[in-house]
């Protein structure tokens, strides 16, 4: 009985924590859906969001909402840079070129931030103050950490906002148009470049928010967070099904559950290996992801 309770608790924690992975994956999937490029620099928006969020907690009396907003703006600025440097000038070239360009941007920004961290704090990690530390909501035998609940709340709010933007506004209509076909978008009078810039901004803002939340729940902020986030977000996106927001959410939650349950049932040190082998198996049997329809290849 105790085992079942523990397992349930782990699954619940995984779902709550997985919502941050889902946020990162949504950022990936937006760019993938509209441009069919892998934005490897996306992790840097997470890292900058974490950095800005950590600075915002140093200001006493600042409400958390403002901190999240600041993190989102910080992330969005990075997104704008990625758009202007790595994507715009390479619009006509092969998608592999853009991917390698974002890799260059990733290495460049990460190294600059490592230098900054080290020069200010003389170490790799800085404490990220968690205002909800130690608060727990008791639900029968289950215990829910407050910060996880807040994470879920913020993620849910952002996802609903995105849903509203994509399906209820003119901008969303233009985005869906562009995701179908760029050229037809031009012909219909959609300013494609502008729509894509906005997509980069939204994607990066999601990354920034995810950075704040990941930093808050894990209590540290560090320059290597971007590299971790890029792997986790990429896998969450592919696990659920590349290109769909619903898939990104499903993938993020699955990845969160998988990691925690894997470390609970097997061992903590092999937890990443379990999640990755699961993804490898999913990719082989369902290349379209958990959610996502099989695309028929016409010749």
């Amino acid at each position: 009985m105790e085992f079942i309770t523990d397992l349930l608790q782990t699954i619940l924690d995984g779902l709550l924590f997985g919502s941050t992975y889902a946020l990162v994956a949504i950022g990936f999937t937006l760019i993938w859906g509209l441009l069919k490029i892998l934005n490897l620099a996306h992790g840097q928006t997470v890292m900058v969001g974490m950095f800005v969020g950590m600075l915002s907690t140093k200001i006493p009396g600042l409400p958390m909402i403002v901190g999240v907003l600041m993190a989102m703006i910080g992330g969005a600025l990075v997104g704008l840079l990625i758009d202007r440097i790595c994507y715009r000038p390479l619009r006509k070239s092969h998608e592999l070129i853009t991917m390698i360009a974002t890799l260059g941007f990733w290495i460049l920004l990460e190294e600059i931030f490592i230098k900054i961290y080290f020069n200010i704090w003389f170490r790799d990690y800085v404490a990220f103050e968690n205002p909800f530390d130690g608060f727990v909501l008791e639900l029968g035998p289950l215990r829910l950490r407050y910060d996880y609940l807040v994470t879920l709340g913020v993620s849910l709010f952002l996802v609903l906002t995105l849903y509203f933007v994509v399906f209820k506004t003119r901008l969303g209509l233009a985005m869906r148009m562009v995701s179908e076909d760029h050229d037809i978008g031009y012909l219909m009078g959609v300013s494609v470049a502008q729509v894509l810039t906005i997509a980069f901004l939204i994607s990066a803002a999601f990354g920034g928010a995810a950075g704040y939340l990941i930093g808050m729940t894990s209590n540290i902020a560090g320059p290597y967070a971007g590299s971790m986030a890029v792997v986790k977000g990429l896998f969450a996106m592919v696990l659920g099904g590349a290109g769909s927001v619903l898939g990104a959410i499903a993938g993020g939650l699955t990845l969160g559950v998988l990691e925690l349950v894997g470390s609970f049932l097997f061992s903590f040190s092999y937890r990443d290996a379990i999640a990755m082998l699961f993804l490898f198996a999913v990719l082989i049997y369902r290349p379209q992801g958990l959610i996502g329809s099989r695309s028929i290849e016409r010749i």
Partner: protein
Amino acid sequence: MGYWYTIAALTGINVILAYSVYSSFITGQVSLGQAAFFGVGAYVAASLTTLLDMNFFVAVMFGGMAGGLLSLLVGFPTLRLKGYHFTIATVAFAEATRVILHNVKFGRPKEDGAVGDRWLGPDGPVGFRHISYLNDHNISSGEFAVLVWCFVLVVVGAFIILERSRISILMRTISEDEVVARSIGISVAKTKIIAFACGGILAGISGGLYAHLLTFISGNDFIIHLSTIALAFVVIGGGQTLWGPLFGAIIFTLLPEIMRPIQSFRIELFGLLILLTMLFRPSGAISANWVRKIRFSLLRKQSVTNLRSATNKEN
């Protein structure tokens, strides 16, 4: 001077790693998982020399074989994946392998070590220490560099032969259009698997060399960064001809070392270089057109003289 020998050896290792990516790249399989084969090759070769006192050359070959076998394990199930799905499957596999390498522990206790340092062989998260084959057998860093470059020469020679053969045309046809390739009777699956396995073998060999150069390796050496940089060597150097990976690997290993005065900013420089090359030469530093032009201008003189002597004879 020893420093530069080490850099020379490292450059050679990177060249072999770049060719391991190139091998499957020309069939249209973009692999971001070379770190797995590299890492396994490093662990296997290092274990064989330190624990079993095996000959260095044989051990490195075994490392290559381990990389090749592992790449078959990846290659078969991922055959039907296309484009990015293949790439991401290789990343997933490489990350899983990294975590396993990070935790693996075997070997035997070591008598004459400092406290906390009494283990010969991979020691879990601590890493694999005391890969001291080169030191034990009095192989200097210069000799090792020569050895590495012998490997490089063999690999480059093999690729030159491949490039002039029919097989390379078949491989490039697959990357252009798989359906067309199948329709003219190319065995697509076989070619792809063999190309990927060759890549695995090369990555394993370069991993074995790397382990002996560094004398200390740990699972975290083989993160996604390594795979992406290996791919970057090929894309930046140019994936259209076999000279691209060679150029890319040499330039991108040497350039940060040459820039000694700004050495603490080497990695930023590396990132910036990748970015700039992609922005200004998207088809890579050495494009097929360029190679053709150089070859043409070299051959033209010769062919003109040939032509003249031929016409003289007729007269």
